[in-house]
């Protein structure tokens, strides 16, 4: 697979380490109830189709990317820096 890195262009997926569903960015407040953490950490939509997911450019520039990929065809529809995506989800400090 090739991932279109927003800064570096097409890079082989082998340079990356995969984490999983990008929903793992939406971490609950750390002093909240365990139930929210349970759902956050353990439950997944696991779609057959478009999936936003986290890839770490471990053998590259060490950017975490949010890649939008179809899990049925493996087609990649886009990739952005995870920090920008995270900010877009309201994460900051």
């Amino acid at each position: 697979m090739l991932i279109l890195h927003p800064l570096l262009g097409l890079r082989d997926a082998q340079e990356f380490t995969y984490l999983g569903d990008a929903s793992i960015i939406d971490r609950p407040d750390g002093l909240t109830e365990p139930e929210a953490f349970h759902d956050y950490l353990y439950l997944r939509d696991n779609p057959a189709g478009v999936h936003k997911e986290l890839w770490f450019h471990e053998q590259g520039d060490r950017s975490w990317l949010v890649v939008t990929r179809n899990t049925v065809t493996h087609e990649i529809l886009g990739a952005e820096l995870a920090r920008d995506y995270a900010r877009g989800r309201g994460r900051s400090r």
Partner: protein
Amino acid sequence: MKYSALRVFREALTGHKGWTPAWRDPDPQPSYDIVVVGGGGHGLATAFYLAKEFGQARIAVLEKGWIGGGNAGRNTTIIRSNYLLDGNQPFYEFSMKLWEGLEQDLNYNAMVSQRGILNLFHTDAQRDAYTRRGNAMILHGADAELLDRSQVRKMYPFLNFDHARFPIKGGLLQRRAGTARHDAVAWGYARGADQRGVDIIQNCAVTGFRIVNGRVLGVETTRGYIGAIKVGVAVAGSSSRVMAAAGMRLPIESHVLQAFVTEGLKPVIDGVLTFGAGHFYVSQSDKGGLVFGGDIDGYNSYAQRGNMAVVEDVAEGGMALMPMIGRARLLRTWGGIMDMSMDGSPFIDRTPVQGLYFNGGWCYGGFKATPASGFCFAHLLARDEPHPTAVAYRLDRFRRGAMIDEKGQGAQPNLH
């Protein structure tokens, strides 16, 4: 029809005209007592044991394609019960015992072959971990032996003992482990279930559940609505998709696992070998192909195919362990979709919907579990309480913190 050597002999002399279908192709009836969704090994075994062991009747197995066409026929055929943790070991040992009597149970030769599995270790720390595991196995009534380097060398003299990057220091051997002919397991259960009146309905995809007041009434399918008092779902690889139709999110991700076979070769490898310093395991089939596999590809996928990285990684492990295979040729690769769970262990449990039961999350270990999975799921469906060997496989275990994490990797499915 009973299969026997005599029957084979008679048919051979009379032109094989007497063989009948191994299972029927009935049309679905309007309703059943129990509908099992999924005609893989687990679903078929469930139906078989429901009929044979739990006295249930009016059972249907619904399969969206052809029975045994999913992971039942896309694995590396290994059976073993060399687990570490209390939640797992009794279940897999129960499975092993069912394997040992399977052919007589089914009147079908699934070629259960107990030629042993040897997990190699390369460091003292791995040795201690295997010692812990081997002891856990024996405590649970399974068999295990710890071999030192010279014993391993005697068993497998062609391994790389002299130029290894990670020297072989020994191995954990389970002699009762081995392989079984994967397709035959599905066919044998199908035939056995069919003979006991189970309707096996192929090309019948479940598209939804009819749920009223928190109770399941039946399933919508591509061949119409089918009523059911109880519905058991055993569709590993598609679990999230199917259970989403019942409004459930699961602690499961779908990942692709590739497996490989070489051209047929005269026998060189007797048992199953796993390489503790790389992602590689191997056995040799009765047809002579070296069957091997490694890690999952590592990203969510519903495509039954993988990429080059894992092929190369597995080949590197193979060559590092057995440099004699350099001139053996990889003949075929295939991919299956795994239900990778959050702790690497499966689920056999009720769901919040009354009458709806779930069996899944087998990761890449589902094949060896087939008999016990079917038996325990049948137990749960028939009696509404878990089988004693499967009590840990609850969906709420993450809420309670009762994970069964053999690898100690935490909530990251692709690392299990």
